[in-house]
């Protein structure tokens, strides 16, 4: 049933509005949000793969009677191929990605409900709004539609930052909004250039127009639109120079909030990145641009993570640095590398969520996140320590886990594509990631406990342990059986190139 496809976007948004209205009615908010969060993955399982045309506006060529009623300069040319309405495409990639995104959303909601005594309808509003908007971005085949939902996702992200209790949250949110208000309209202007050139904002139409020679890929307008859209992309995903603000927002939100923020960023990365690859892959220098910015992102973030002393900021930088792997996969541009990048994106979504929630428990216990003031917590919480340690192994790429599989694929693809330097850098960076992780793990759990460390709460909420365990199980399962998802991804990429 293809009619279920728009429901993946509609239901989270309706749920968001409903929960905002219900704000204040404590138990009702809890029940409704949990029920909807459980229902969301079910829609994915029930609906079929396929296209959905909004309002039934399929391309004219699919609709014989209507086509004949138009003059010949429409019915006999490429104009009859244009997509008139907004099109959603739902395939294997979307199914897998959205399944894990919704699962993550469920865990975040579950953790928040258990952590706070009074559940806030507005916070649920923000989470559902973010989930719905990135879902629309991943499904949509329309670059302006993506832009609209991207702006909504950014506003939801700002709301999630503001709902934490950090004392620097307003400043960080303000900086993010100001930088975003420069990046957003520039992205819109780039879309405007494309629209003026092609006359359509549908990505399939644009790439068809480039392929069929209808527009010259080296015309100044097309190149200029590439520059502006590329700038919007690096803003939206936090490659340099936006890596500082992106890591700052991760470090200011609540732990489950940071997990959601990172998940939103990854999905935005994938959907805009795939759009850029589909539109501009005929330009020779696009891959170079993507590789350059990804390399900068990886190097700068990882070195900043090494010298930082704030626990949450370190994980924020690590999360931003891992996005560089996705960028390298997109930049190499072969079938294997893009598949590997998509797989890496999925892994990152899960692993960084695990680390954010796992180290967030430390903040919950001690109310400090300075690694110089922490230490010796393994005697209090050995279970969490071991689970977080395995999560760190997964991030660094230790064999039986999922990070290993995707990084191995990336390195193989780099070697096959005659980029051995990139393979060496990927290995180096993953070693340094592991070193950073060992450093914070040692500082938090293994180092002797400082005298002045006060433990404010003794028990970690059970929902936190439950979430970490679920995420860890996913890590191990994906690591042992990567074919569960990689098959779907490679089918999607095969249709792309």
């Amino acid at each position: 049933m293809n009619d279920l496809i728009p429901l993946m976007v509609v239901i989270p948004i309706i749920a968001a509005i409903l929960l905002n209205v219900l704000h204040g009615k404590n138990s009702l908010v809890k029940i409704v949000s949990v029920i909807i969060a459980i229902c969301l993955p079910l829609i994915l399982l029930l609906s079929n793969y396929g296209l959905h045309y909004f309002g039934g506006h399929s391309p004219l060529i699919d609709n014989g009677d209507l086509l004949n009623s138009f003059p010949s300069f429409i019915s006999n040319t490429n104009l009859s191929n244009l997509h008139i309405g907004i099109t959603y495409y739902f395939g294997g990639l979307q199914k897998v990605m959205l399944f894990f995104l919704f699962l993550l959303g469920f865990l975040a909601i579950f953790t928040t409900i258990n952590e706070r005594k009074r559940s806030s309808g507005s916070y649920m509003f923000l989470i559902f709004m973010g989930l719905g908007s990135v879902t629309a971005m991943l499904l949509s085949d329309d670059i302006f539609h993506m832009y609209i939902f991207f702006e909504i996702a950014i506003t939801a992200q700002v709301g999630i930052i503001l709902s934490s209790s950090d004392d620097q949250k307003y400043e960080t949110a303000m900086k993010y909004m100001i930088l975003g208000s420069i990046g957003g309209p520039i992205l819109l202007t780039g879309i405007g250039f494309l629209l003026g050139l092609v006359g359509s904002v549908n990505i399939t139409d644009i790439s068809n127009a480039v392929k069929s020679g209808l527009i010259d890929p080296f015309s100044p307008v097309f190149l200029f639109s590439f520059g502006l859209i590329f700038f919007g992309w690096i803003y939206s995903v936090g490659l340099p120079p936006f890596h500082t603000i992106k890591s700052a927002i991760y470090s200011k939100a609540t732990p489950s909030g940071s997990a959601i923020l990172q998940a939103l960023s990854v999905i935005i990365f994938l959907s805009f990145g795939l759009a850029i690859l589909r539109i501009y892959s005929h330009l020779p220098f696009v891959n170079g641009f993507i590789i350059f910015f990804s390399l900068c992102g990886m190097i700068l973030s990882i070195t900043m993570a090494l010298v930082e002393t704030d626990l949450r900021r370190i994980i924020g930088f690590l999360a931003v640095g891992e996005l560089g792997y996705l960028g390298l996969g997109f930049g190499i541009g072969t079938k294997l590398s893009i598949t590997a990048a998509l797989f890496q994106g999925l892994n990152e979504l899960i692993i960084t969520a695990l680390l954010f929630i796992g180290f967030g428990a430390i903040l919950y216990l001690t109310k400090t996140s300075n690694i110089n003031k922490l230490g010796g917590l393994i005697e209090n919480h050995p279970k969490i320590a071991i689970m977080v340690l395995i999560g760190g192994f997964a991030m660094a790429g230790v064999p039986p886990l999922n990070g290993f599989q995707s990084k191995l694929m990336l390195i193989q693809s780099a070697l096959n594509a005659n980029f051995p330097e990139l393979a060496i850098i990927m290995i180096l960076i993953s070693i340094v990631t592991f070193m950073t992780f060992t450093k914070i793990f040692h500082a938090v759990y293994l180092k002797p406990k400082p005298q002045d460390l006060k433990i404010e709460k003794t028990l970690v909420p059970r929902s936190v342990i439950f979430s970490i365990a679920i995420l860890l199980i996913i890590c191990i399962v994906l690591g042992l059986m990567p074919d569960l998802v990689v098959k779907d991804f490679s089918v999607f990429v095969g249709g792309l190139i």
Partner: protein
Amino acid sequence: MDIYTMIHNSVQNFQNKLKKDKITNENVSSSIAAELTIISTILISSILLRHINVMLTVLIILGLGLYLITNMPLISKLKKEQDDSLNKMMFYVILTLGILVSVVYWGVL
């Protein structure tokens, strides 16, 4: 002056400016690791230029290597440039936008 003392001093310099924390061994060793990482990764990634011109690559690698090693405590300078102040972020954002647009525009000409 050996490299450990040199980096210890530079870490002390920028940490004194930022916070009143004491310098631990971990801070210095992670700074050294960051230093080595940044030099090695920049040098390796500049090999990628061989796809454009081999002679140019050799020259750039020699120059970069000399430059990076003579300006050794790099990480404190980098750290200072990447703090949370809006003005610095905005500066780099506009710089990137300018470079991106002018490079693309150059490609047109």
